[in-house]
């Protein structure tokens, strides 16, 4: 017998049927080798073919016995071919699907439904194919078969789609309602409406009555509390040692990580929710609103219940007359709509000196519309609270740093919506504040710096657990911090005969203690600064600030130099470098010291030439010391001089060499410094003084600019 193409296909179909039965029978015992996995994963691609082909074949099949079509060989052959190929495709799809189902991450009743409806497509279609030419197979049977196959296709398709896309994929965007909470935040219970839904979304599919992996079931409280084979799920109050959180926090690749790899993971918010819930003793009965307003669990739970930006508040009252609002606005009172098309108004009043109680009274024109009123810092008295109590829709009231003592707070009980009240910085009387709980709607009470004692505050919180009390920062004296340094009043560092110094500190009541001998000041023995300090010679001033309740400051240190004489003229025999010669003839004795900023105009720079200056004194002066203040900044080529010569005398042309100094050579890695190079000589009368300071002409081998000349920077010459 010659094997036709069709005959071959029929054999294949039979073999496929047998194979499917085999797969179904030994499902639990088969593992799919990794190289066959791609075959299984092609299931979602191939499945579209049998759907279309079989549907069409079934349509043709149900009209096959119609008189006109019976005689059409094309119709008959086409139908039979179509049915065969459709059935073959469905068999192929089912085999792929069975392979795929062996991979991680597929289980549950949805899969079972999908599997069996899919398998039945193959079986029903195969039976139709083999029986369709028997004598008892007539119109009626053909139609029943066609309908049955189509039904199976629809069901299998539906379950399959639900597996990949999730329930309600098609209508989600239309119905949408699923995403919104069924329970309003005000009524929601922590466990039932927040924690349990997390479990049912992310855990329940494997830990349920039918399929309790690890013998753990999470469908209700009793099951949860029981735990699984590894023990209890959590230790109330101790998230760190609770199995539940332990498993959640294991690395993804760990076999015991939950939910298992490939499954829908917990979001960070959900993990935080679970952690805080366990930390809060795994509370089972409380409502979300029973927690303090600022409690992390409450905040997270509220967002969880109302995930989309909390709906804008809708107000039941009508908008105020526009001209009335406009009339109320002036430079010190701002009345503005909370948002476009919102009837609600917010009011701020400013400027202490302009404030009069009428500013609040006049607001009665819009008393229905005011939802927020800000009177901070104004001389408002309890009397005005009577007026405010008539602003029936008020939500937020700010009375910080006003002159109230709390006597008028009872008036605010009339406000049904008041949720936030700020009374920081007022001098409150606790007897009045005690009654605050009578404002039923109050959620937040801010009373920092009100003179209430710690025990008053605790008592208040205890009797009003639903109100978030914000008492703010109060220094308990246990964690002192360091004071900042004192400052001096002058930036003059060089003086002629004496210098009067003032020291100050920005904080009131600070003591400044100082030394002038270079030792560290201390809080007991060192001299206390009082008004002014007179310096007469070269001095290193060290000062520290002290105050009780603070750590003493770091040491402030400054040097002061005496330069008794100022030359009448200074002449440069060799010019300094152009860039650093501004006002050169003055800056060397202007009594101003520079810092490391060479462009500050306080420095004179030399490179090509040595420094050679000639100073002239109209009145001869007695001199025995010349000090050059120079810079050392090695990376930028700035070196002190290699040699300093001081020449002097009474005749310009007959100067004698008085002194010659060779400072130590600079080593590699020398820190930046301001250096004093002093040349001393026997005291003598001087009219002319010539100073020659030689810069380093050749930078040493270790320097990046080796071979080039170094810079010499001088900012002041002290003459004594």
């Amino acid at each position, binding site marked *: 017998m010659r094997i036709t193409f069709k005959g071959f296909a029929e054999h294949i179909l039979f073999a496929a049927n047998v194979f499917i039965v085999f797969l179904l029978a030994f499902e639990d015992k088969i593992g799919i080798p990794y190289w066959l996995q791609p075959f299984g994963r092609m299931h979602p691609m191939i499945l579209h073919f049998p759907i279309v082909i079989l549907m069409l074949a079934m349509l043709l099949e149900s009209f096959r016995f119609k008189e006109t079509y019976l005689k059409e060989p094309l119709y008959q052959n086409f139908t039979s071919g179509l049915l065969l190929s459709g059935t073959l495709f469905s068999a192929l799809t089912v085999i792929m699907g069975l392979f795929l189902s062996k991979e991680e991450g597929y289980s549950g009743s949805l899969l079972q439904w999908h599997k069996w409806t899919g398998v039945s497509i193959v079986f029903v279609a195969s039976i139709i194919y083999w029986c369709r030419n028997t004598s008892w197979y007539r119109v009626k049977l053909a139609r029943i078969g066609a309908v049955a196959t189509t039904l199976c296709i629809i069901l299998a398709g539906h379950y399959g789609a639900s597996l990949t896309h999730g329930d309600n994929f098609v209508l989600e965007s239309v119905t949408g309602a699923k995403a919104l909470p069924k329970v309003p935040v005000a009524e929601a219970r922590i466990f039932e409406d927040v924690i349990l839904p997390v479990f049912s979304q992310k855990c329940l599919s494997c830990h349920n009555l039918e399929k309790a992996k690890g013998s753990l079931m999470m469908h209700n409280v009793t099951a949860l509390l029981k735990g699984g084979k590894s023990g209890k799920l959590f230790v109330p109050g101790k998230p760190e040692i609770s199995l539940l959180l332990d498993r959640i926090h294991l690395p993804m690749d760990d076999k015991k990580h939950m939910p298992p790899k490939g499954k829908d993971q917990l979001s*960070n*918010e959900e993990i*935080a929710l679970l952690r*805080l819930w366990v930390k809060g003793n795994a509370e089972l009965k409380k409502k979300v609103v029973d927690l303090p307003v600022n409690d*992390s669990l409450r*905040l997270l739970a509220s*967002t969880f219940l109302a995930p*989309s*930006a*909390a709906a*804008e*508040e809708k107000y039941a009252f009508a908008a105020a007359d526009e001209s009335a609002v*406009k009339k109320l606005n002036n*430079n*010190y009172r*701002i009345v*503005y*709509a*909370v*948002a*476009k098309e*919102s009837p*609600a108004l917010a009011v*701020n009043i*400013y*400027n*202490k*000196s302009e404030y009069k109680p009428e500013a609040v009274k006049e607001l009665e024109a819009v008393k229905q519309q005011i939802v927020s009123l800000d009177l*901070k*810092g104004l001389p408002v008295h309890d009397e005005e609270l009577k007026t405010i109590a008539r602003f029936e829709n008020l939500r937020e009231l*700010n009375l*910080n740093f006003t002159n109230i003592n709390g006597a008028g707070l009872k008036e605010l009980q009339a406000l049904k919506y008041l949720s*936030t009240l*700020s009374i*920081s*910085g007022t001098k409150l009387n606790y007897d009045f504040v005690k009654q605050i709980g009578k404002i039923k709607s109050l959620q*937040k009470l*801010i009373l*920092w*710096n009100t003179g209430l004692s710690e025990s008053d505050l605790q008592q208040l919180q205890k009797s009003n657990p639903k109100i978030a009390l*914000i*008492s*703010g*920062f*109060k*220094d308990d004296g246990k964690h002192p*911090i*360091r*004071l*900042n340094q004192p400052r001096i009043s002058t930036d003059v560092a060089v003086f002629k005969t004496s210098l009067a110094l003032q020291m100050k500190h*920005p*904080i*009131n009541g600070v003591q400044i203690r100082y030394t002038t001998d270079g030792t560290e000041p201390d809080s007991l023995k060192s001299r206390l600064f009082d008004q002014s300090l007179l310096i007469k010679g070269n001095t290193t001033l060290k000062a520290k600030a002290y105050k009780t309740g*603070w750590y003493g400051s770091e040491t402030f240190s400054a040097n002061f130099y005496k330069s008794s004489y100022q030359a009448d003229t200074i002449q440069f025999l060799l010019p300094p470098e152009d860039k650093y010669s501004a006002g050169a003839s003055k800056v060397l004795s202007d009594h101003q010291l520079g810092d490391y900023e060479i462009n500050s105009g306080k420095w004179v720079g030399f490179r090509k030439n040595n420094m050679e200056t000639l100073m002239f004194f109209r009145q001869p002066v007695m001199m025995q010391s010349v000090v050059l203040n120079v810079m050392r900044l090695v990376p930028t080529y700035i070196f002190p001089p290699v040699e300093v010569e001081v020449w002097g005398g009474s005749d310009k042309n007959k100067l004698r060499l008085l002194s010659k100094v060779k400072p130590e050579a600079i080593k590699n890695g020398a820190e930046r410094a301001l250096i004093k190079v002093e040349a001393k000589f026997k005291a003598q009368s001087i009219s002319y003084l010539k100073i020659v300071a030689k810069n380093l002409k050749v930078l040493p081998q270790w320097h990046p600019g080796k071979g080039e000349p170094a810079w010499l920077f001088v900012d002041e010459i002290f003459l004594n």
Partner: protein
Amino acid sequence: MEKDFLEHGLNFNRRRFLSKLSLGLGSVALGSLLIPDLFTGGMDESSLPPGIPDFAPKAKRVIYLFQNGAPSQLESFDYKPKLREMMGQELPASIRAGQRLTGMTANQASFPLVGSYYDFKQYGDSRAWVSDLFPYTAKVVDDICIIKSMHTEAINHDPALTFFQTGAQQGNRPSMGAWLSYGLGSENKNLPAFTVLLSRGKGNGQGVYSKLWTNGFLDSTHQGVQFSSGEDPVLYLKDPEGLNRFERRKMLDHLAKLNEISYQEFGDPEISAKVQQYEMAYRMQTAVPEITDLSKEPDDIIKLYGPDCLVPGTFAANCLLARKLSENGVRFVQLYHQGWDQHGNLPSEMAGQAKDVDQASAALITDLKQRGLLDETLVIWGGEFGRTNYSQGKMTKDNYGRDHHPRCFSIWMAGGGVKPGIVYGESDEFGYNVISNPVHVHDFQATVLHQLGLNHEKLTFKHLGRRYRLTDVSGKVVKDILI
């Protein structure tokens, strides 16, 4: 401004139509159709945009603590133990993925990874990681939202800073504060809606220029007003000798009349802006001294912000001043703290910078909270980009530097309707790329505007033939971090 010019043009048209063409009422009707408030007068303040948000805002004000120079995310909020493990090893090319480099490291032969010199610990209920450099911020971690997945487009300071503030890398567009002033106006007519405070740390610094707080093409009343960092934050507030308050008032009234005449003639809206600025300055004379006087702050406040808060020109003093300005209705207070550009000596320089800002930044949060203001004030802390995970220049055990890095960095936000105590976004284990919930600068800007009740796509201004927005043509509100 466009409208005003048009209106001025139409004014002439109206005259011409009425007198010469005698079209009468028809043209009047047409004119008022084109410009609805054509006949309500020119220099009246009420003709300014009313400043009402599109929807009910969560935040009324912003305090932006800009850390200029770009603090390293790897030594502050983005904990990457892997970098310590791989210390000195080469940054894998697959991670760098062709990221362009600045001229400062482009020629560097190798990119050795370097871990944080400072340790990290977890804090608060949110268990957020914070480095040891920020002990005070660590204490308020449950009040702030740390975003670890910021990314930007620029790689150098000025363009990046300009991008953050104006939405474009080149200058001349309005700054964020100017947009808010334009969109919402001032809450307090006695103070500018947008103020700027500068301070400088000891670290390697980068300049800030007034173009960062420019009004751009918006009316110049929206320009940021820079407060001086000396003893007198606003100069020349006192009346000159021999001129009392009453004389000053009379002078301003006369001046306003003269300006009105010249406005009638030229129709330049800048004239009316000028008049308003004179008036504002007059009122600031009484409002400002009260606010800038820090000497009456209680001792607890000084301890909270740290003793530097009384030294003018420090970051701490500016934080305290920012709180006072914000409390008094200044819409947008912009701080800049310079000195965060640690190309070298990062461990020591950054410690100094952090010490400058840590206590005062945290104090600002606590202080706003204890006044009930945190709910309505949005506080933002962050730089213009991040820093590389590899060392710039020579690296030793306790000294290294980091170059500019635009692809991933951290900032934090607090109050103003932002979820407290969360960490948003993740970077890869090298701290180089964002791997989840990226937040682009435009997304950040859109979110800030959204919190103030403004739709960033609707807050536009037509200039040179096109409509401009702060977020240019992109930006999505980061809803995940909002309450």
